[in-house]
């Protein structure tokens, strides 16, 4: 197991109370696999990823759990050790490439910066000039690999001279630069045109194959997850409510929420043409129902749902948090 997250809790302390953005999330990630983390916006996907990097923004904080990686708990590392691991062992790409690159630095330099931070070419026998040359060559190579055309010229351009898709490629090049073991991708295609989306997802799949880099792909689109991920974890109001192999989840969704999500995607289930959105709205994380958080929107709710529901292990990596399964 490459990464094992146990009972991760990330809360925001606000004047109106404590928001449990990540409320006991447990996920496992195997070497080289793509795991999809799916859920409606506001359910805590981004905060889960940021927690893995220990970059939760103020006033949020990780209040519990463990993140086991390479034989240690990331939450127990000193902030210095953690800084050194970011970008080198775990890299992240973001939702909106337009705002992820720093507007005042040349794109090539922003890629080179991560090589410099982690001393990728820092053998003492190299002079600064030689080192710079090697770093630049590597940047050009990364730009080629991520499909940025004429990288020699584009190295010296600024982010605003790139299209959205090209910017996201540059961000991926940054993430790729230090060959991290895990790539955290937070809705990497949400802000892009549909045609570009497919290109970026294909690029990520290719990188996943050729580098054997594990990916956690966060998306609100179950269709995207179904296409690219080996396993899927469905998140609702800060909790994982169902987990399993992609095929099984798509063919036989267990949790009413997962079923609802599937029904609201037109093209995945062609023999069931009726498009039915989930009734009700995403719950307010400040006022969650005490029992199953999906209860107010659930068609199958019974008395026992008013109590908190544990995750049920159905074997073969299939997990579901619902009273209907024993």
């Amino acid at each position, binding site marked *: 197991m490459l990464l094992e997250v146990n009972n991760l809790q990330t809360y925001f302390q606000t004047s109106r109370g404590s928001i449990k953005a990540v409320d006991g999330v447990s996920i496992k990630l195997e070497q080289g696999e793509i795991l999809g983390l799916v859920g409606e916006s506001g359910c805590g996907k981004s905060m889960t990823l940021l927690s893995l990097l220990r970059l939760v923004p103020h006033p949020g904080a990780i209040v519990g759990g463990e993140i086991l990686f390479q034989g240690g708990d990331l939450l127990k590392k000193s902030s210095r050790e953690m800084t050194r691991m970011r970008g*080198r062992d775990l890299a992240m790409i973001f939702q909106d490439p337009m705002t*992820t690159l*720093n507007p005042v630095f040349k794109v090539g330099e922003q890629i080179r910066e991560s090589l410099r931070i982690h001393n990728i070419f820092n053998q003492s026998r190299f002079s600064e000039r030689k080192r710079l040359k090697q770093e630049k060559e590597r940047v050009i190579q990364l730009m080629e690999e991520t499909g940025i055309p004429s990288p020699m010229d584009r190295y010296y351009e600024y982010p605003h001279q790139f299209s959205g898709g090209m910017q996201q490629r540059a961000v991926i090049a940054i993430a790729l630069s230090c060959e991290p073991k895990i790539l955290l991708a937070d809705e990497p295609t949400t802000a892009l045109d549909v045609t570009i989306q497919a290109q970026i997802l294909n690029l990520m799949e290719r990188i996943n194959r050729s580098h054997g880099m594990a990916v956690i792909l966060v998306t609100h689109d179950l269709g995207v997850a179904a296409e690219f991920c080996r396993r899927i974890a469905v998140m609702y109001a800060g909790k994982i409510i169902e987990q399993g192999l992609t095929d099984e989840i798509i063919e036989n969704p267990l949790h009413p929420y997962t079923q609802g999500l599937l029904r609201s995607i037109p093209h995945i289930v062609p023999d069931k043409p009726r498009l039915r959105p989930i009734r009700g709205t995403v719950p307010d994380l400040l006022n969650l129902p005490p029992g199953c958080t999906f209860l107010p929107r659930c068609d199958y709710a019974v008395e026992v749902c008013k109590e908190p529901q544990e995750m049920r292990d159905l074997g073969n990596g299939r997990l579901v948090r619902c009273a209907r399964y024993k």
Partner: protein
Amino acid sequence: MQAAKIAERILIAIPVVIGIGIIIFLIMRLTPGDPVDIMMGQAGHVSAREIELLTEQWHLNEPLHIQLGYFLRDLARGDLGTSFTKGRPVWDLIKGALPATLELALGAAIFALLLAIPIGVISAVKQNSFIDRASMTVAFFGICMPVFYLGIILMLVFSVKMGVLPTYGRISYEVMLHKVTGFYMLDSIITGNWAALGSTLKHLILPSITLGFPMAAIVARVMRSSMLEVLRNDYVVMARAKGLREFSVIVKHAMRNAMIPTVTVIGLEIGMLLGGNMIVETVFSWPGLGRLVVNSIFVRDYPLVQGVVMVYAFTFVAANLVVDILYTYINPKISI
């Protein structure tokens, strides 16, 4: 920015400077009080003949538009005229006073920036902390407190009570300084005169703080708010996610962006340091342009006032141009 664009900007600025010249010309002449009367009043008993001579010599007997014509003709030749009261060419008087003003402006700018930029950054990074609240409260006073009031308070504390800093002038009478450029700091360094350098620095401190304080207050507030804005951006999170230390995230990635709006304000404020220093120069008896123009307004020395105002107009235009050029360097999205 290419040379052609810069040249274009300078050409555009010329009508502005001339326009300001005409306005100040008219304002001076429409202000009650006649320069000849004032001068003669100070001189005591004078004959009607003398008054007539002076009036004629200064073209004050001619209609306004003819006078304006003379003024513009001289201006085109680069001639700012001769001071009524001092009898010397205006340009000589300005050249004599300009180094004092520039030296003070430089001192004030250094004080303001060294104080304001770090405070703005720290206040934003530690938003709502004690440092943030305290410095923003002080900045608030810095913006609304009259300059002469701050100057007098500083004088009271550091000169009268503690007796450590001088209250007027640029250098102590006891120190001899051979003047090369008119910039006393530079002159003392060139001539290796360390006593003079010390004295000059001591004389600079209080006026610099007084003049620079409002600028520091404004720049700190602007820096803080643009820093807060920048820190919300994804690229700051990205910089951290790359593995950059927090210090580099703030100083390299965030500050570079936060400086973009701040530079505009700094440019305008530096214009203010050069053109808005009459009060400070008067309070500290600083022999610069500000005091020169104040005194010449009192005696209606038209050419001198006009000359100094032209210099002010020129400085403002130049400061703006420098800011625009600088802007293209720090903001890659802009190319004028």
